[in-house]
């Protein structure tokens, strides 16, 4: 797959016009992480509603098209879902959402940063600890 396929209209659109971008005035979850490899930075806030549902979700940050489009699309997917749904989200879901681009091992971390922040925040809120299986913390 060529880079023209990776940077499809969809990804460029979410990069330049991110959905759910900004900060919440009232929130129950606030998580932040960075990808030191390329300086991607994502902060994600959630207001939890009745029945432990994701009532509102916003992200702020900066970084490459893949990281920013990925987290933006993820917030759209997450809105209205129960918190437990976050536990079920897998990296395959994220790749599928992005149109299964052929990303190299270093760019995969860009694509998954949003999911990592989402899981870290929600797990913390539920009193658990999210242990990133890909260990992207270690990547500098």
């Amino acid at each position, binding site marked *: 797959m060529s880079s023209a396929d990776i940077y499809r209209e969809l990804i460029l659109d979410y990069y330049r016009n991110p959905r759910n971008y900004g900060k919440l005035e009232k929130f129950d979850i606030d998580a932040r992480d960075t990808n030191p490899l*390329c300086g991607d930075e994502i902060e994600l806030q959630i207001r939890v509603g009745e029945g432990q549902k994701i009532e509102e979700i916003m992200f702020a940050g900066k*970084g490459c098209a893949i990281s920013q489009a990925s987290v933006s699309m993820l917030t759209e997917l997450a809105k209205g879902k129960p918190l437990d749904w976050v536990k079920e989200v897998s990296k395959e879901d994220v790749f599928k959402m992005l149109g299964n681009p052929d990303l190299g091992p270093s*760019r995969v971390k860009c694509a998954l940063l949003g999911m990592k922040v989402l899981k870290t925040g929600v797990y913390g809120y539920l009193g658990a600890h999210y242990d990133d299986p890909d260990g992207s913390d270690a990547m500098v």
Partner: protein
Amino acid sequence: MLKTEVLDIEKVRSDFPILKRKIHGKRLVYLDNAATTQKPQAVIDSLVDYYSRYNSNVHRSVHTLGEEATAAYESARERTARFVGSYAKQLVFVRGTTEATNLVRFAWGETNVRKGDLIVTTMMEHHSNIVPWQLLAKSKGATLKFVGLHPDGTIDMGQLEDLLRQSPKLVAVTHCSNVLGTINDVAAICAKARSAGAITLVDGAQSVPHIPVDVGAVGSDFYAFSGHKMLGPTGIGALVAKKEILQEMEPFHGGGEMIKEVFLDHSTWNDVPYKFEAGTVNIADAIGLGAAVDYLSAIGMAKVREHEVALLDYAMQTLSQVKGYHAYGPSDSRMKGGVISFNLADVHPHDLATILDEEGIAIRSGHHCAQPLMNWLEVSATSRASFHVYNSYDDIDALKAGLQKAGAIFKI
């Protein structure tokens, strides 16, 4: 546009076997030399030769292999020292620039820096010339202050002089910025710092590989550089220091080789530079660095510099024609090492690097281990193209075409 052929580029390129490699079916255009350089066959051969003909430990064994390995290791020290205008007894082999700054932090800093002391560095430093001083300042209760930059990416000498009036203990500065390419007047900085009573350390990781360096003329107390950025192997570098200061300093690591005599309750230290080379040293890579020094000396560092200035001039003109291209740092090639940091409109450097990789072009994207400088530039990252002896005008034309392709994909 003027294309002066300073070097016999085809001959030089044929010395580097990796340049024959195809990346995604394209010719390799390697423009990530500020991160690490490729190795000429002569360096690769020197490693194979050591391991296959005279592998042995140094400074201990009296057998033939031991004598040969010791002679080769010490000869590499001698040639590397001479390459930067110094002497073998003043050159400590280390893993690289980062180990050199950390050696100074521990072996000099722990005894000489006290509570309330001031350490001065600049906004354009690599993390290896920031973090050791943060750690030292924290452990000693000292203060670390940063000299700011002018908009053109040069050091604000007025700010430096203000800080020198506060009598800092240490002034640590880079000779050449790994991001902006700025070549600092380190001789002037060291002279001013010395008058203010400060010890000086110069990070030469980006200067020794690219410009003629005479550490005596620089006049710093410490001068550090890395072998792998100057066509040598990874895992070897040098800390060059004045002999008196090395003699006064405490050891860095304790162990074999660095001692003169060991008793149960105390030990005495070996002579410099061996006092700082505990354990079995990196013999093979030191020999490899010697081979790299020979290779660069045969070309001549003045020629290397002239070649890179010609490439810089060509690149700055050529790339500025690309829509959305914006470069950082000095625009005068005489003030700049062979490195260009830039951004292309709103394309993130990491996305750009992915697109260029598909064309066989290797550039660096990110913060270049210089996050304070990125904040000063008000960017999260930049793309960086950096040159060495084997880069050609064709490489720059390829980069321009790659940037244009990225611009088309991102609809700039």
